[in-house]
């Protein structure tokens, strides 16, 4: 077990280093970094001064070392748009995104398990077919469009929900509903597949012959044994929800990281972009590490395998 943890931790550190170098390369390969950091109308004099001040006139590997040192101290420079340290700007926006993501994933997992388990329990029934249609739809609809249509219907025409912001419970309805769609669709299918396998096992026949209630067979006996792939996929989806957050936060003006990222891109705020990418990357790698641990704890075969 210790070896497994150490191996995973080593992979995690390797991945973080990879992301740091990637961000560095992206910021340098495109020519002058001044072009990325400064506003587009900056004069030549300002650019030269900027380059000298930040050491961009030095050799590349010296720059990489400086960059690594700055990254280790959490120093990405000041935000162009907000005038504060970039890392500080990013970290103040993270709670809003995390809350949205956690609420959405909790709802999506619950819905996915309910829909998928019901479909698996009665294979080829109407419930099964409906669940497949729901999954297919959830995987095929662009999430930002659902959000916009939600605004059009509930905010513009019916006027029952607010269009954007995050001031109260009503502001949560549309963003969460939009964000929940895709993970629910994927999870319902995963739950169905692994539940079908679990329900075909011998211990289920035993439980049935003992007269255990159908509900208890599905949600206690089978679900527990089908849990491993479900948790694995839920973990991957949790990391992927950043994708959804980018567009959903933009559509609903949610004050989170996704919104910040898009604003930073349009405002050419490269310090913030760097900080967002690194913080998000590191958060996702830590999340994956946690999933690996949970996975091996649930399934001893994995840590004994290698």
């Amino acid at each position, binding site marked *: 077990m210790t070896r497994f943890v150490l191996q995973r931790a080593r*992979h995690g550190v*390797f*991945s973080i280093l*990879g*992301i740091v170098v990637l*961000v560095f390369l*992206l*910021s340098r*390969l*495109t020519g002058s970094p001044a072009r*990325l950091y400064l506003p587009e109308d900056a004069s030549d004099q300002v650019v030269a001064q900027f380059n000298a001040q930040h050491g961009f006139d030095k050799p590349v590997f010296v720059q990489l070392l400086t960059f690594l040192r700055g990254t280790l101290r959490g120093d990405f420079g000041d935000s162009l748009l907000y005038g504060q340290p970039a890392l500080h700007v990013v970290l103040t926006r993270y709670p809003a995104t995390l809350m949205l993501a956690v609420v959405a994933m909790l709802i999506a997992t619950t819905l996915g398990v309910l829909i998928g388990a019901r479909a698996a329990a009665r294979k080829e029934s109407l419930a099964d077919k409906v669940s497949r249609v729901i999954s*297919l*739809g959830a*995987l*095929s*609809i*662009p*999430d*930002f*469009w659902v959000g*916009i*249509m939600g*605004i*059009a219907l509930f905010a*513009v025409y019916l006027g029952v929900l607010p269009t954007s912001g995050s001031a109260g419970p009503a502001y949560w309805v549309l963003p969460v509903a939009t964000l929940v769609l895709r993970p629910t669709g994927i999870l319902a299918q995963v739950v169905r597949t692994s539940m079908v396998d679990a329900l075909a096992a011998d211990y289920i026949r035993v439980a049935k012959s003992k007269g255990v209630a159908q509900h208890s067979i599905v949600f206690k006996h089978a679900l527990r044994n089908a849990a491993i792939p479900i948790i694995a996929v839920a973990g*991957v989806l949790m*990391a*992927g929800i*950043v*994708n959804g957050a*980018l*567009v959903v936060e*933009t*559509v609903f003006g949610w004050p989170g990281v996704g919104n910040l*990222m*898009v604003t930073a*891109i*349009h405002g050419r705020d490269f310090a913030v*972009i760097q900080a967002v*990418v690194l913080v*998000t*990357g590191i958060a*996702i*790698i830590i999340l*994956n590490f946690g999933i690996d641990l949970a996975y091996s704890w649930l399934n001893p075969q994995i840590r004994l395998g290698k």
Partner: protein
Amino acid sequence: MQEPVITTIGAAETATDGSTLMRRDRFSVRLRHVLRRDRLGQLALVIIVVIVIAAVFGPLMMGDAATQADLGKRFVAPFNPDHGAAYILGSDALGRSFLARLLVAARTTLIIAVLAVVVATLIGSLIGTVVGYIGGRVDAYVMRIADVMQAFPSLLLALIILYTVGPGLAPLIIVLAVARMEVYVRVARAETLAVRERLFVTAARALGAGPIRIVLTQIVPVIAASVVSLATLEFALVILSESALSFLGLGVQQPDITWGGLIAEGRNYLRDAWWVALLPGLAITLTAVAVNVMADVVRRTTQTD
């Protein structure tokens, strides 16, 4: 110690080898066979064919109408025959025929998606096949990179690259391809690992074929079915990613338009013109549903058992 193992596996699978090759030749026959019993699949195929025809010939017939502004016809409501056939789906803020704009956007959207999937399929599966065949340290490094890419949100990666490189048609296609390449690498590698030890590969090696020749003539034809199946499945995802990037303003730039870009436009006119945001979204959804259903049909056709 290795030799007998290879021979046993190879010998046991010679029969499968023959049938795999036969099956590959009769792909269209099998596809027709699967489709014959699948109403939903037939419908999906018809929808795809109609969309492709519309995207190819629509812009040729109505391309001019898509850019012809007529401020007198701003926000003409759809399904009103008074303004002529071109305005059957209404008009946008500049009075341009929305049907024409949808058709032109369809062409751009499909071209981007097709090229992105083709690039990702070719490069990704080639990398996967080669590292799977070579194995060893190269394989380990490439798979670590693939792991990092899998963990990293594809849209975020696309956003950073587009930011540094600048938006445009070619960067967009490359970004969409790179973001999903890891999946093809993984599938092609796994398939190659299974094929590598089979008798006909050993035979080719014994006859003196080099690694490049073996990969191209022995392995690629066998794993092609799985890769094609994956590519159809990925197609819908690429369309969705493209529309999200265009919506965020990082896709193709004006005057080029895609469905995602049209939705972004329509977002500003939700009160006055609901159809500007609604119709392109419906187009995306319809295409994605049809492609996803078709991907399922292709998967069932290529399944070896």
